[in-house]
């Protein structure tokens, strides 16, 4: 059977590596993939799970996005925070989210956190760590609240409180001194905010605002920009230039709006 040339072969396509090493030898290095530097956390409380994340995305030493969203949707009551390569976390969680919906329809049951965890770990293991996604997966399902951490090589841990990303050590210090079992919602939110703030202020890869997400058996509440400790102060004066600052020699004004008349022919799609 002749191989169909229309379909590309499975797996990564490495054909650009030759070109890249050629360019590298001539002094042109590849741009750094946007990384989410990041502090992401998750913690178990009395009624469910609280997830937290900072909002800085970096490209090397430059902040590429000052307010990105790192808490991704998996299912109605399951969310996933992502650290590592931004594109990898984004697409990995989107793929598993899609598969979880299909799985729920196929089984006729509400989706479970362990299902998402197994799908994620098996995919990441298959790619042997080349997909740089470090995830904190949390949610509430029919069996109760669950919190997992998933590393890029595919190992998972099940714990009551977790932190990932470059700011994870700062955040874990806060958790280790502050976490208690069966906390109330407000306490848990306070603890998560403190942990993310520790990452924002002590880790260069994390910054800007705190995002939070509270997941309970009854509903999920996404608290986007829950705390904004880095708002820019109002500039001391307006730095706009008055009209006439730059002199001009001649002026020509053309209208770019072309008048058009739309005539309806028929509603039916042309299938000829």
């Amino acid at each position, binding site marked *: 059977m002749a191989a169909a040339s229309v379909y590309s072969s499975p797996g990564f396509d490495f054909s650009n590596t030759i070109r890249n090493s050629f360019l590298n030898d001539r002094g042109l290095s590849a741009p750094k993939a946007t990384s989410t530097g990041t502090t992401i956390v998750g913690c178990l409380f009395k009624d469910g799970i609280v997830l937290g994340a900072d909002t800085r995305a970096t490209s090397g030493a430059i902040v590429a996005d000052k307010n990105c969203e790192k808490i991704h949707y998996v299912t109605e009551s399951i969310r996933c925070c992502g650290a590592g390569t931004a594109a990898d976390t984004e697409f990995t969680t989107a793929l598993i989210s899609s598969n979880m919906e299909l799985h729920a329809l196929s089984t006729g049951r509400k989706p479970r956190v362990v299902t998402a965890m197994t799908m994620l*770990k098996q995919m*990441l293991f298959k790619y*042997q*760590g080349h997909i740089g996604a470090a995830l904190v997966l949390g949610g509430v399902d029919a069996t109760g609240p669950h919190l997992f951490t998933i*590393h890029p090589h595919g190992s998972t*841990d099940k*714990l009551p409180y977790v932190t990932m990303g470059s700011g994870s050590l700062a955040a874990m210090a806060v958790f280790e001194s502050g976490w208690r079992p069966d906390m109330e919602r407000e306490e848990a939110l306070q603890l998560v905010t403190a942990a993310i703030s520790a990452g924002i202020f002590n880790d260069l890869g994390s910054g800007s605002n705190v995002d939070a997400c509270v997941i309970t058996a009854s509903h999920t509440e996404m608290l986007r920009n829950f705390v904004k400790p880095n708002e820019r102060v109002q500039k001391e004066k307006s730095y706009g230039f008055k009209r006439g600052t730059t002199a001009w020699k001649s002026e020509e004004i053309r209208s770019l709006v072309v008048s058009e008349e739309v005539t309806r022919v028929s509603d039916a799609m042309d299938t000829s």
Partner: protein
Amino acid sequence: MQAVDIHALKAGEVNLGTSIMAVQFKDGVVVGADSRTTTGSYIANRVTDKLTHVHDRIYCCRSGSAADTQAVADSVHYAMQMYAQQHGAPPPVHTAASIFQKVCYENKDALSAGIIIGGWDKEVGPSVYNIPLGGGLFRQPWAIGGSGSTYVYGYCDATFQEGWGKEETVNFVKNTLSLAMSRDGSSGGVIRMCVITEDGVERLFVPGNELPRFWEGKEVLGVDPLKPRSAPGPVPMAVEV
């Protein structure tokens, strides 16, 4: 063929530093492990459960790469469920060990996994199998593994005896792991043990502050390192007039 360093973990990979062991006794097997998982020098999980259920009376202890051993254990767990479903009987421990060996040997270039299997079945009774890095299968009355095991070979050789009951075996495992954890930086946390017998599996837990203690240097230092020293009171400063 270039020599492949199968002992090195890839950069950023989570490491099950580890001290693990399994010991066979009269009525069953005791499997035990520490609880530390490291990424470089950071402890990613200080309460890991390295004793993984493969079947009702078969448990495995994992050391090496966390990702590799979890993936292999999941795969064997699935195979054992299929076996039980198709044969209508629980799998022998040797079968589980053989599947582990098959995976570990055939993928030896890509895996970094040291596994010890302990279990009970009806035909043979209790048995312990050791599968080190290369993928060989070795049945032994007791087996130790992981980075911490190197420090306790002497203790185990000198202490182990055939014909022990459950209590003596549990003590042996507890003491061995405690000694390994106190000397190996990649091992620590708490001790988890499973006692697997015909009647069931009993999970035992020893928290970090209740570990058996051995020599801690009192004779050399002159002070008990764990007893709090009284703070010295204010001393008048010598002033030159």
